């Protein structure tokens, strides 16, 4: 999996590419936890994410818990397969998750 970070002031965009499973979740956790200081807006771009496992969901949840205290967090460009996982686990109920807008 590839992790790409773009920092714009206090707004951080993290774009994920590949499969977020038990093998890559630790890497993402370290990456995110180490870059959250002073961040008030976090956008996680899942445009190129093919798959997310429960270990990956855990990273999103703990990131969310940190971001609640310091600003906003958004997950964007979620494709259908990943969206179904968010829906099944009801992460859609907790996190601000936005589907990929195919029509645009």
């Amino acid at each position, binding site marked *: 999996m590839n992790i790409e970070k773009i920092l714009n002031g206090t707004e951080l965009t993290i774009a994920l590419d590949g499969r977020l499973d038990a093998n890559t979740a630790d890497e993402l956790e370290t990456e995110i936890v180490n870059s959250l200081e002073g961040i008030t807006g976090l956008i996680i771009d899942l445009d190129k994410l093919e798959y997310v496992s429960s270990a990956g*969901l855990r990273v999103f949840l703990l990131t969310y818990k940190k971001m609640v205290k310091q600003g906003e967090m958004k997950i964007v460009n979620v494709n259908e397969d990943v969206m179904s996982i968010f829906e*099944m686990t009801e992460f859609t109920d907790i996190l601000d998750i936005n589907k990929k807008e195919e029509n645009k």
Partner: protein
Amino acid sequence: MKLIQKLRSSMAFNIIGSIIIVLLIFGILVSTLGYFIFTDTFKREYSTTTYHMADTAASLVNGDHLDDYLEGREQEEYQQTRELLQGFCLKMNVTMVYVILVDRSDYGRFVSVFNPINNAVDNSEYTEWELGHERDTTNDEYRRKYQAVYEQQVPYETVYRIKTTDGQHSHITTLVPIIGSDGNVSAILCMQRPFSELFNAARPYLIVIAAATIILAALASIFIALFIRKQFVNPVRKITKEATRFSKENTIGEPLGSVSRIEEISNLAGSIDTMEHDMVSYIDNLTAVTAENERIGTEMALASRIQSTSVPNTFPPFLDRKEFDIYASMTPAKEVGGDFYNFYWIDDDHLAVVIGDVSGKGIPGALFMMVTNILTNQAAQSMGRPAEILAHVNEDLCKHNRVDMFVTLWLGILDTKTGRIVAANAGHEYPAIQHGGEFSLLKDKHGFVLGGMPGMKYTEYEITLAPGDKLFVYTDGIPEATNSNKELLGTDRMIDILNKDSSASPEGIINNIYKSIDDFVGKAEQFDDITMLCLEYKGKDDQDNEH
């Protein structure tokens, strides 16, 4: 033969041998060069001395009366001069002197005036030329030199006969002019002296050089041999012995320390000392790690047994209950896993069925799974409603959750009298229900995963199973089983597999799924835990009811 082989491979022997050869070559070079320089110097010295002697002899001869002597005049003076020259020969150890007048047209002939001989000097057998004896010049060398002396180009000339071919002893002949009162050269005096003194002097010189070389070679060899032995051979032997000992015993020995003044050898010894320390600490480390690994392995095997026996694992589990048939299996990707299933009685007619999946595998997943399993069981025993049970377990898990792990969980309570299931789903996979003919996914109402956030509410729903209907619940290890092309199995394929033999018993259904997953995954590694449970409702058991 063995000794020769040993000597050949011995470094000291090779080095000393090379040194001896080099010294011998050096000795030969020095003595040859010395011999030439010596001969050259000796020849020059000898000829100078001879020149002075010849010059002295020449002063005895009256250069103005030579023609008179030849013509028989001045006989008294001739006899006096002859005796003087004869005496000179005897006293000065000269082989012979001859005074000659050379034909100056081509220097090809000469006539002898005096010729005293002293055969005793060199054991020679010369006979004296009488006065007026005429003779051809011996060779061109003499011819040239007669001319040079006559024309006073040089003070004197020397002819060397060091290697003679005509049986004569080696000798030198010095040619000096006899000058008349008019300042012209009137004759040549030749003085012949033996040259054997050169060899007499050269031999001891050569012997000294040879002896010096041999002694030097011997001394150098002994010195180098001692040096090599002390600084090289013995240290290397010591190092070899220590290395051999170390490879057998693997213990740190006496430090070799500074075994040699040769830096490379000393460094080698130092490296061996360091290596021993490193190796021993490495071996200790490795032993500790191996022991630790063994301990972990044993513990993991035990943990695995504890986990697999923490849920019902003998089938059929309730021999006296005929209302339903149930079968389940749990296969962690590692020794222990985060998946689990469970089922237990809440009362005589109500069976709670649980399947869960922790967001993590291995030991953390297993610990979290054990906690969830126990909390769920306790909650289920004290509360009747699945939504309540899940909300309660969620609060409990959130309270102590410091690692942000969560668990997806489906819980259903089957009324064995009616086949009605009241269920709630905390973010878990959709159950598959066989109602009548075929299996299909039940897109039930989900709540949030357990342990994620406190204060979550869960909704309940009902499923009613007619006799022969089946419920199949599973963890994401099944739809997310991945083949080597990175394709997921997916729920559609899972439903197809279930429907291949939908009338099979719960055990048959689960075995079919296993087999199909194996076929699908092929050689790819199993990454996720795989857990599933299948329940078939058979209908109310009248006998049991009477009981």
